[in-house]
């Protein structure tokens, strides 16, 4: 009843192609932004930032990246973990080699380095498709992690083989290292993720997005209307990896503060991000956020309810988490292959008519 577009006429193509075509959506989004920027920072604490908000935002960014490649362009990738690692190690090498460099530039360079690596491993996509390509990305996953593990240059020859982030400031505010305040790390991450999310949304509704979807839906027909498959796929690999790389840099520098190749950027990480986009919704930027939120919150809630609530052993709870995650994935695939994003749309459709049945 309150959510409907009656009386909101679109008088130009521009307004018809806007992201939020309905006024109520625009207002809700604005409110969300005000809360995220103006309210949350005052109530945030260490636990809330490091266990919920930072992982949510950073994984959302990684999920957007993977969604561009897999959801929009249809190229299945199982190498996300390693690409997060490329971003992280690039950020580490940059900050330690050039201590004066602004962290925002470090982020961009990390993204660019990852984009280059991603495009390199995307080259086989010209000749191979589907699962064959997925296996090729697995090659990237294992090879890259092995490199970070075996080549001491990557971790500056230190004894532990770990990398850890020195404190850095942006606009005079400390955002990395153990002394960084939760509100600062949160606001910085939020801003970065928001900007990149908007960019991604714009890309997918423009020429690039349509070219990607054309390749995804029917690559032969795409080629016949003049889309060059290799360039288009490589662009998807590049931009996707850029996003994943920035997410990896944020993950290492702002959120975790330290990382170790095999532990932090293993194949589990690849699957985790893949699950996020399946559950959130393939081919949806909004879905990337929903999926990331879901996959970050679910283990926390499960752990709280099972370990603290039911008193199960932590190991059993971990196994239960595996089962529940598996069941949820299968459940979503069966009930709604388009994920939470589609469910959200259905809810909105229903809301238009509510409380009337027709």
């Amino acid at each position: 009843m309150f959510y409907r577009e009656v009386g909101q006429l679109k008088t130009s193509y521009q307004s018809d192609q806007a992201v939020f075509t309905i006024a109520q959506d625009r207002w809700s989004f604005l409110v969300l932004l005000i809360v995220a920027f103006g309210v949350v920072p005052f109530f945030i604490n260490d636990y809330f930032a490091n266990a919920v908000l930072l992982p949510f935002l950073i994984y959302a960014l990684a999920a957007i990246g993977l969604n561009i490649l897999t959801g929009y362009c249809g190229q299945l990738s199982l190498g996300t973990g390693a690409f997060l690692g490329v971003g992280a190690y690039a950020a580490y090498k940059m900050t330690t080699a050039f201590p004066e460099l602004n962290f925002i530039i470090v982020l961009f360079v990390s993204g660019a380095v990852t984009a280059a690596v991603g495009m390199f491993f995307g080259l086989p996509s010209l000749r191979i498709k589907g699962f064959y390509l997925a296996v090729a990305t697995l090659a990237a996953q294992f090879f890259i992690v092995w490199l970070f593990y075996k080549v001491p240059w990557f971790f500056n020859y230190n004894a532990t083989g770990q990398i850890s982030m020195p404190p850095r400031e942006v606009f005079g505010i400390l955002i990395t290292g153990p002394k960084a305040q939760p509100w600062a790390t949160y606001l910085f991450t939020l801003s970065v993720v928001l900007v990149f999310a908007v960019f991604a949304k714009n890309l997918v509704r423009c020429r690039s997005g349509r070219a990607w979807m054309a390749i995804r839906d029917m690559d032969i027909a795409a080629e016949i209307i003049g889309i060059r498959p290799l360039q288009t796929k490589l662009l998807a690999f590049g931009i996707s990896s850029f996003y994943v790389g920035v997410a990896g840099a944020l993950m290492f520098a702002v959120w975790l503060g330290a990382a170790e190749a095999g532990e932090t950027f293993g194949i589990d990480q690849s699957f985790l991000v893949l699950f996020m986009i399946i559950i959130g919704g393939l081919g949806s930027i909004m879905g990337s956020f929903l999926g990331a939120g879901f996959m970050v919150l679910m283990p926390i809630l499960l752990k709280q309810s099972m370990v603290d609530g039911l008193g199960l052993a932590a190991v059993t709870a971990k196994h239960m988490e595996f089962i529940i995650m598996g069941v949820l994935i299968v459940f979503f695939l069966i009930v709604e292959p388009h994920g939470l994003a589609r469910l959200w749309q259905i809810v909105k459709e229903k809301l238009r008519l509510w409380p009337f049945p027709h």
Partner: protein
Amino acid sequence: MSYKERKIGDTLLKVEDISLSFGGVKALSHVSFDIKEHEIRAIIGPNGAGKSSMLNVINGFYHPQEGLITYKGQVRRQMRPHQAAKQGIARTFQNIALFKGMSTLDNIMTGRLLRMRRNVFWQALYFGPAVKEELEHREAVEKIIDFLEIQAIRKTPVGRLPYGLQKRVELGRALAMEPELLLLDEPMAGMNVEEKEDMCRFILDLNDEFGTTIALIEHDMGVVMDLSDRVVVLDYGQLLADGTADEVRNNQDVIDAYLGVSHGDDESLEGAA
């Protein structure tokens, strides 16, 4: 002829001595014909005669083992499909090849991709020139939507549309490329009479108003005879006849190929329609 007289121009495309085989199976052997500017050229023949293969050769999807293709005065042996697209060759498919996950509007917009210039940075910002470009092309696409009378399904995912409308959207996507040569592979297959009439009207209007050169494959002889200026007949990958609709209709070889035995009666050909 119920439509206005068109001016047929010079040769736009000429195929000479084209042979194509797949691991021993000959799809086309030594086929030659030409297509003139602004004409409607039909390619007919029984199933498996190599009609679709011929279109695939023209738009670069198949690479013939022998023969030459001359398009707009340029001689070539082969090229990639996207190069053909760049040079103004568009096509539709026998089995609809739309992008199922996208809306009608987006499907037709993909036809404009080649004409869009702004790079990813402008697109990411969605600002200034990128918006302007997007809106310009949206306008062009809306004209096509009006022309094909599919305004109502603008935002519908094409996977949900009925067959006839999908064919229309596919034509729309090809038109969005503003092609000089439009290849239509059985544009009316599986349609009912009204849908066929609509489709014929679109094809004739296109040819009249925009002067688009059209090569079409069609099984409905009535349609072929009404629409086309000249007809190529293929059988078992070989050229059987080439000429105006009337000439072809009275060609003994063609009649034999269609009926299997030589009776020499045009009535039966029309009956097949």
